């Protein structure tokens, strides 16, 4: 498999605090890779560095060989990166359909064309029946799916999903896992996800990258990573518990 996204030696400091230091990993075309780690490990910062929200102090990000670092977030999106926000950011006063339409307009300038595409994406995320509702009125699980739909509507080459399972009930998690897996299988969509819910990580990802205190401490297949003593020591012991909390006994 060819490499789609390359994160090369990325570092970011906030007022002397190293949030991310020398992190490197890559995401092969068509793969689902998970980025995990305890709170404050630098996962969301890494996402923001990839998405162009802020510039790194060192290192760079490439998409299919093209340098993304230095681009604005909208240019990163244009280059083919779709992202969601951990704290969902729906366009609250717009309808669900218009939320996704805005994303679709990025590559489809004609309204009618973009609207057709938006409706398709909404069907995919099982939000079809909700499309005329105002986004503000959606439940949290629905808003999470709306985030995914809006990012997907921009027709990215890679989707960055920031904790889209957080706050979902186990059945909802399984449903979303299935949707994402279908998406990956049917369209070959590459996905990089930050996730706390281990159930989803184990079910979805082909590779897992583990961060702790801004440093990459482990990488490999899910089963390998779970068995890595370093990972167990810093993270998995507690995270597994909290991640599985939602699924009950």
């Amino acid at each position, binding site marked *: 498999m060819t490499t789609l996204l390359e994160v090369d030696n990325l570092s970011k400091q906030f007022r002397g605090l190293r949030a991310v230091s020398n992190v490197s990993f890559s995401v092969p075309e068509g793969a689902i890779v998970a980025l995990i780690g305890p709170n404050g490990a630098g996962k969301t910062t890494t996402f923001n560095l990839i998405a162009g929200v802020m510039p790194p102090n060192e290192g760079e990000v490439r998409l299919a060989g093209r340098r993304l670092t230095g681009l604005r*977030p909208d240019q990163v999106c244009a280059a083919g990166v779709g992202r969601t926000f951990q704290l969902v950011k729906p366009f*609250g006063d717009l309808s669900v359909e218009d939320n996704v339409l805005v994303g679709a307009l990025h590559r489809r300038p004609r309204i009618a064309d973009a609207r057709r595409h938006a409706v398709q994406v909404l069907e995919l995320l099982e939000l079809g029946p909700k499309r005329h509702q105002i986004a503000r009125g959606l439940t949290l699980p629905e808003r999470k799916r709306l985030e995914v739909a809006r990012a997907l509507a921009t027709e990215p080459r890679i989707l960055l999903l920031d904790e889209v399972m957080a706050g979902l009930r186990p059945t909802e998690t399984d449903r979303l896992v299935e949707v994402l897996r279908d998406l990956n299988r049917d369209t070959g969509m590459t996905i990089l996800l930050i996730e706390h819910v281990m159930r989803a990580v184990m079910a979805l990802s082909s590779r897992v990258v583990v961060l702790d205190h801004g440093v990459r401490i482990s990488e490999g297949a899910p089963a390998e990573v779970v068995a890595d003593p370093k990972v167990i020591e810093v993270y998995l012991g507690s995270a597994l518990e909290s991640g599985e909390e939602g699924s009950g006994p």
Partner: protein
Amino acid sequence: MTTLFDQLTARGRVALGLFALALLAVPFFADGYLISVITLVLWFAYVGQAWNVMMGFAGQLSLGHSLYVGLGAYASAALFVHFGVGPWAGVWLGMLAATLAGAIIGTLGFRFAIRGVHFALLTIAFAEFTRIAFDHIGWLGGSGGFFLPVGDAAGANPFDLRGSPALFYYVILALTFGALALCRRLLHSRIGYFWLAIREDQEAAQAVGIDVFRAKLIAVMISAAMTSLGGVFYAFFYNNLFPEQIFSVGRSIELILAPVIGGIGTLFGPIFGAFILTPLAELVTWGVESAGLDMPGIKQIFYGLALVAIVVYRPEGVWPWVARHLRLVHQPGDQPSHRAGDRP
């Protein structure tokens, strides 16, 4: 154009049609006073519509829109007085000046990430700065005022915009309907959806590929250009311009009353707001006067109370509420073609 009013119910369309017909007929039955009052109402509706593009659609609060009114007014008046060039040519210079000013303010504000209230203060600062500058431009009359030769009030010379109240009335009516149609088009265009997205959440808008800086700049420039047309009308209607009046913060605030009361971000809000506000203010003034009282600021007090009441009790404006209760627009769930982003 077929989609121009598609969110209106049949009843809404009839109401709008009757309203438009009534407006067209006004000069045939109204006296001079009533025509001048409705002209003023339409002027506020028009300029409010222009302001709404920036605040209601793109979410950028401007409290310095008097700047664009003033630039349009002075540019066209200067061409007319000094070079004999009529307003229909002067309009272009006015729009150019205002668009340029909007571009400068927008570029500075948005490049340096000045947001919210700070951006509003920046717009005030530019308007005030310009006001004081115009006070000292002798060529344009300075603080003593700039006067256009008064035309023949009985005739009608549409080319120089000189003539009877009815002529001015139809010009501002055409501008108002033109602005409504333009805003409807804008709101359903790509840039319109981009504006709404930015208004709702700038970060999320950027994440879906919207060049936020460019989109906001376009909003300011369109709003400024539209507003400057209102300035051209103002100059030829009143025939006198004083920097202290036309560029003042008070004027900027007057401009936002109609859309705020009617409904920020709605298409009919500015028109509706202007039509309820001005007559009510006239009524209050009349009431106070007939009670034998002399209260020079009573109209402004009424406006101030109206602003407070609206943001406290009905922040989305009066129009959406009225339209909902009189069933003039489709409700969410009414019919599948309804789209929530269209605030009629």
